[in-house]
């Protein structure tokens, strides 16, 4: 499969979580790639599940989530 398509699949997963109110709260990277922890606000009572994990394999998706993370951190400052 083209690496771009692999990236798009991972990007979609990240985007979906963001659309559902999650943001990245923790990043762990090791030999197998990046492991992201997503969390969403506890005030959002309708949603029981507050925490999700995602493993990111492609280099472009690792750049992508890093950009989101930096944008988020800028917003918080």
């Amino acid at each position, binding site marked *: 499969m*083209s690496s771009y398509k692999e990236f798009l699949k991972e990007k979609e997963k990240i985007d979906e979580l963001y659309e559902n109110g999650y*943001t990245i709260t923790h990043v762990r990277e090791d030999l197998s790639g990046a492991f992201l922890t997503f969390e969403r*606000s506890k005030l959002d009572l309708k949603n029981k599940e507050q925490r999700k994990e995602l493993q990111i394999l492609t280099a472009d998706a690792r750049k992508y989530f890093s950009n989101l*993370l*930096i944008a*988020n951190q800028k917003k*918080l400052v």
Partner: protein
Amino acid sequence: MADLRVNFAGIQSPNPFWLASAPPTNSGYQVQRAFEAGWGGAVWKTLGEPILNVSSRFAGTHFNGQRVAGFNNIELITDRPLEENLKEIYETKKRFSNHAVIASLMVEPKQEKWHEIVKRVQDVGVDGFELNFGCPHGMAERGMGSASGQVPELVEKQTYWAKEAAKVPVIVKLTPNITDITATAYAAVQGGADAISMINTINSLAGVDLDSWNTIPHVAGKGAHGGYCGPAVKPIALNMVAECARHPEINVPISGIGGISTWKDAVEFMLMGAGSVQVCTAAMHHGFSIVEDMIDGLNNYLDSKGIAALDGLIGQSVEKYSDWGNLDLNYKIVARINNDVCINCNKCHIACEDTSHQCIDMLTSENGNAYLEVREEDCVGCNLCSIVCPVDGAIDMVEIPNGEPMTWNERQAAIKLPICNS
């Protein structure tokens, strides 16, 4: 016409093109002819206790029809008595008072030896000294040249001793046979160097003869490592100049040496911080007259850029040279093939398919013509296809807008931050 004069650490010369200390500067006859040809300065063949040389001495590395892509030598410093050299230096300086005559020196790492040679050479009126801490063969086995140039403490000490006796500027010539040249460059600065120059030659064995199994070159069937120079070493030398130029604690002028063959090479070294450039192999390959093209080329280039003097050029690219961690990970370029120029040799396809990211497709148009196309979304912008392409203009590397910059350093800082989600 731009003003090509340089004032390099107090050494004046009519242009930045100097002959490096080597066979072209072995005698007064040669240096005077070089000045007549247009060279602005010359670093005299290294003076020291006269040595004995072997035969043979040189080897050329020819690559795919390009002669002398690299050059290897096992020659030592001057084999002529000091008095003879001094007499010729004096005569040369008398005839060419506006040209830079710099004496390259090498003695054992002892204070009295440095004092003695500096004083004796200075008396004939040289414009500066260059301390040879770089020669990688022969002299190094005797504790001189690169053997002492690889030890920062010895570089500092010997520079200091030379400076104690010198009344003219002292340039320290560094060896590239070291992991981090800024360590010895810094040591030279600590020792009081007025300037540094780099590079001397790189440890090398040019080849092995497939019939006789002798080394190339060999001396009666035996070989010893030599020093490599010429066009092949230019990228190594340019990096070393740039690393020193951008180092915050190395604040002395740099004379760039290593693979400089044309005015364009010289401009690259100057943009990366060289205040003068030195040439050896290109002069040995083509003769002194190459300096005419160098002067013309540099002049025309400066005129075309509207730059009146070399100060407007020297060091202009240094701030563009940084650490990998400061490069923008979001910057994106992709390859684009111009099918009207492409000759369909498929070299780009083969290179990409076998050794890169498999993103150049071989396609056939509706009217049956073969053509190549890049799948831009899969292209990582590595440049390989455009490097192997034999036709100028057949492949362009095109910038694709890709958002705000983000460096590795910024990214690593961001993923380490505790992130608040409330």
